[in-house]
Structures are given as structure tokens and as C-alpha cells.
């Protein structure tokens, strides 16, 4: 079943930078997709368009049979509740407990007095604790987030997304600020969620080896255009050169530069 469909999507930033140029993609429910490309190629823009964190200028973007561009106000918020998002810098509230972070997705349904006092119903707490258990950090539930390591924080973020029960998870460089071992643990968690719950997962990632190892499908982006779209097993050195450009095209590093001190 088609979950996400880009039809001739173009996105230009106000400063004139064309981040996406005529992108056509179809992603099915339950797929695990890695998006690779150079920094600034448009990977972040691509996934942020899916939950309307960025607006598109041209084309249509359908998610679960909803035309994303046509949503307004409250509709956008309702739509976003069905899409989870993971960030490179975790984006947790660090000055509060782990469980309070995981409970955030329940906030729109709370009574006003609960919002004022910061209280959550018991059944939501149990649901949040189960999400923490899934990523193996149940024992940290009542620790403050700023006491946790980077890897643990990213798993709190993952638990926050699981507790949201979304149909799609978008992950923007989820392992870029983690060490290689922790990165694997987090990627394993993604894989597990993908297999157990059939959520679609889209990951922006710089580590090509991880992308090829974990994802079923790889999308290569270069200067806002999709230059590769296929199975991860089919990715060869030629494909990578096409996505990243060969060494010869990299900007010269030995320009005589003057440093601003």
C-alpha cells in the first residue's frame, strides 16, 4: 500500500536555494528507507516536507491519501500526530524526567488543568513505560534527561516516538552524534520497530555502511534531485560516485584562505 507519494515536488527556500527539484518518489507502508547524499543535498528538506515542517512550492505530496499541502491549522497538527520524528541532537527537554518526555505525544488530548499542572493519566504513563521498556531503558524512567548519555537520550527520543504510535517515522541523522557502537544499537532498535510494528521508516544518514546494512531501500539525493532509488543490495561504488560525486569534483581544500581571527 502506498504511504508516501511525491509528485513533481519542488522546494525553493526564500534565499533562492533550490533544495528539491522535481522529486518523484513512492514509499510503501512498512518500508525501511535510507536517504543518502552530501550535506546540503536536500535530505533534511525531503523528510521535513513529509510532516509539513517545511512547505513545498510546487507539485503534490500525498501521505496516507492526504494532500499534505492542502492541510490547514488544526488539520496539520492532527496529521503530524501520525508521524514520528527523530533528530540528530535528540531534541529532548533536558531539565525534566525521561518519562515526561515520552508522555509528550499525549499532551493534545489532556484536560486543560492537567496541562497547567503538568500531570498525566495513569494509563498513559503505563503506555510510556512500555515504550521505554521496548528500547531497554525502563530503569531510567524517572531520571532527568541531562544525566543520560547521548545513546540513552536517542533511545528516549525513540521511545517518545513509539509512544506516539505513528504510521511513519522520519529520522534526520539519528546516529550522526553517536559513537559507532551506540549507533548500531540505535539502528537495531529502528530495525526492530520496523519489523514488529510495520511502521514505515525514513532515515537520513551519512554512514553509507549503516545505510546499506539496515535499510531495504536506498534513495540517493544530489543537489535536490533523486539520482538513485533502488534496493540497498544493488548499491555499487559507481552508484555512490554518482550520489556523492567523485573525489575530483570535491572543492579544493588548499585555497590560500585568510582566516578571520
Amino acid at each position: 500500500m502506498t504511504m508516501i507519494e511525491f509528485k513533481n515536488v519542488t522546494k525553493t527556500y526564500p534565499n533562492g536555494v533550490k533544495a528539491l527539484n522535481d522529486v518523484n518518489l513512492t514509499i510503501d507502508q512498512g518500508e525501511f528507507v535510507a536517504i543518502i547524499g552530501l550535506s546540503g543535498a536536500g535530505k533534511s528538506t525531503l523528510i521535513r516536507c513529509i510532516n509539513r515542517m517545511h512547505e513545498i512550492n510546487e507539485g503534490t505530496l500525498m501521505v496516507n491519501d492526504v494532500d499534505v499541502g492542502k492541510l490547514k491549522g488544526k488539520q496539520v497538527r492532527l496529521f503530524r500526530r501520525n508521524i514520528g520524528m527523530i533528530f540528530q541532537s535528540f531534541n529532548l527537554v533536558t531539565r525534566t524526567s525521561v518519562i515526561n518526555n515520552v508522555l509528550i505525544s499525549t499532551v493534545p488530548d489532556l484536560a486543560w488543568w492537567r496541562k497547567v499542572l503538568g500531570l498525566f493519566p495513569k494509563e498513559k504513563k503505563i503506555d510510556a513505560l512500555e515504550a521505554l521498556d521496548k528500547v531497554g531503558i525502563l530503569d531510567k524512567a524517572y531520571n532527568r534527561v541531562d544525566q543520560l548519555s547521548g545513546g540513552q537520550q536517542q533511545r528516549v527520543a525513540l521511545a517518545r516516538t513509539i509512544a506516539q504510535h505513528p504510521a511513519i517515522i522520519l529520522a534526520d541523522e539519528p546516529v550522526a552524534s553517536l559513537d559507532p557502537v551506540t549507533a548500531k544499537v540505535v539502528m537495531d532498535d529502528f530495525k526492530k520497530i520496523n519489523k514488529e510494528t510495520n511502521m514505515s521508516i525514513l532515515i537520513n544518514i551519512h554512514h553509507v555502511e549503516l545505510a546499506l546494512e539496515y535499510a531495504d531501500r536506498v534513495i540517493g539525493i544530489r543537489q535536490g534531485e533523486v539520482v538513485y532509488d533502488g534496493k540497498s543490495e544493488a548499491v555499487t561504488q559507481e552508484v555512490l560516485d554518482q550520489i556523492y560525486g567523485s573525489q575530483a569534483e570535491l572543492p579544493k581544500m588548499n585555497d590560500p584562505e585568510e582566516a578571520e581571527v
Partner: protein
Amino acid sequence: MRETVYDKIFKPKTYTLSNGKEVKQHASRMPFILLIVLFITIVSWEVTGVDLSMIRTRGYQFIVILLAMFPPNLNFMSNVWGPLFDTIQMSLLGSIAGALLAIPFALLSSSNIIRNQLLNGFFKLFLSILRTLPTLVTALIATFIFGLGTMAGTVAIFIFTLSYIGKLMYEHIENVDMGAFEAHESMGLSKVEAFRYAIVPDVMPTYLSVSLYAFEGNIRYAAILGYVGAGGVGLLLDERLGWRDYPSVGMVLLILMLVVFVIERISEYFRMKLT
């Protein structure tokens, strides 16, 4: 590196590496800035007509009045309690009300939360207009509206606290890491909900600390508001100074100092706990 006029006059320092690469460092602007500051100081000295010899010839008058306050008139103590509690009450009520109302104002003035520049510009302007009003003037205006007494003082302190905490908090909010806010918006929370759950926990310690500090300062402000008829010990000070009853003035000041000291210590203790 862009060369400004300054760089043409004061040449940048050049470091040459062994392989011939050059790195330039701007000459420091500090001497230039110090020169301007010195110039402004001299001008303001001349304009305001500061006469240091006055300190030598008339300075002892400070001590004369201070000496006249000793020993303080202990019998006057019973007259101080009423106005003193008025002062504390004005300060406390005004601070709490101001601090509470500062939250929505800070939210609406923060450019990272309210993208509409017109809207947050309006609230920023409103806060800075409030801030330009000296508390004494606000109190004076308030006495015209609410009549003589503590109500006018409370309103004056309320307005000052609102503008002070509102400004400090929106500056703080604008420097907060917006990651969690973005995450909450991506999960379908409204801006107000995201603010409540992402920004509030982050700025809460600063908010409480700033509010306590404002309360500390407000006690001192509240003490002089009586001069314009806004109630509290200021009324008493004005009256006793007018009658040159310095021992009684000494008594008022002594009690005021003790109260301010105690409140500052308590507030300091809690502010230490918060950070």
C-alpha cells in the same frame, strides 16, 4: 577578509607559516573604543558641572545627618510596623502579579516563538515603553487613579515588575535551544502546548530566580513610593525628614535595612538552590 577604513590605518598583523601561507589578524579595536569612552566621560563631566571640591567642603554633612540618626528613636518603633507591612505587601503583591503576567508577555515578545514580526514587535515595544516609565512616576499617576495609599504603590510595582521580568524572560527564551520545541511541534502540539512543555521547563529556574530578585529590589523601591503618596514607609520617611526628626528616621531606616537584609538572604538562598 574585508578591509575597513580602520584596517587601512592600523594594519592587521600578518603571520606567515613555514610553507608560505598567510593568516591575518585584525588590529584590536579596543584602544579606539577606550578613546571614545574617555571622550564621552570628559564631555559629560563638563556638561553636568561636576565639582569635586564640593565633596571636600560639604561632604561632612553626610556624616552630620547620619550622626543625628543615632541613637535611633526606639519609641518610634511601634509607628513603623504598619507602614512597613504595607511596604512588604505592596512589593509582594505587585511582584507576584507582575511575574505572572510577564509569562504571556514574554511568550508573545519572543521572536523564535511568534514568527509574526508585527505582533512580537508590538509586545516588545509595549514592554520597553513600560520600562521607560520611572516607578516613581508610575506611582504618581496611579495615585491620581486609585487615590493615595497602597493600591497605587502595588500597581506601580506591578507595572515595573511586568516590564522587567517580561524583558529578561523574552531575551532568555530567544536564546533557548529550540530543538525540543521543534520536536513537539512535529508531534502535533500547538505552539502554546509546545511552549508549555518544551520551553517552560527550560526557563523555569531562571524565571523563579529573576522573580525573586525582582521582589528583593521591589522592597527597596516600595520604601520610597510613599514620597508620592503611594503608601508604605516612604510616607513616614518623608514626614520625619520634613520635621528633621532624625532619630525617628534612623529607626525607620534601621528596621528597613534589617527587613531588606533578611529578605535578600532568604531570596539568595532559594536562588542558589535553583541554579
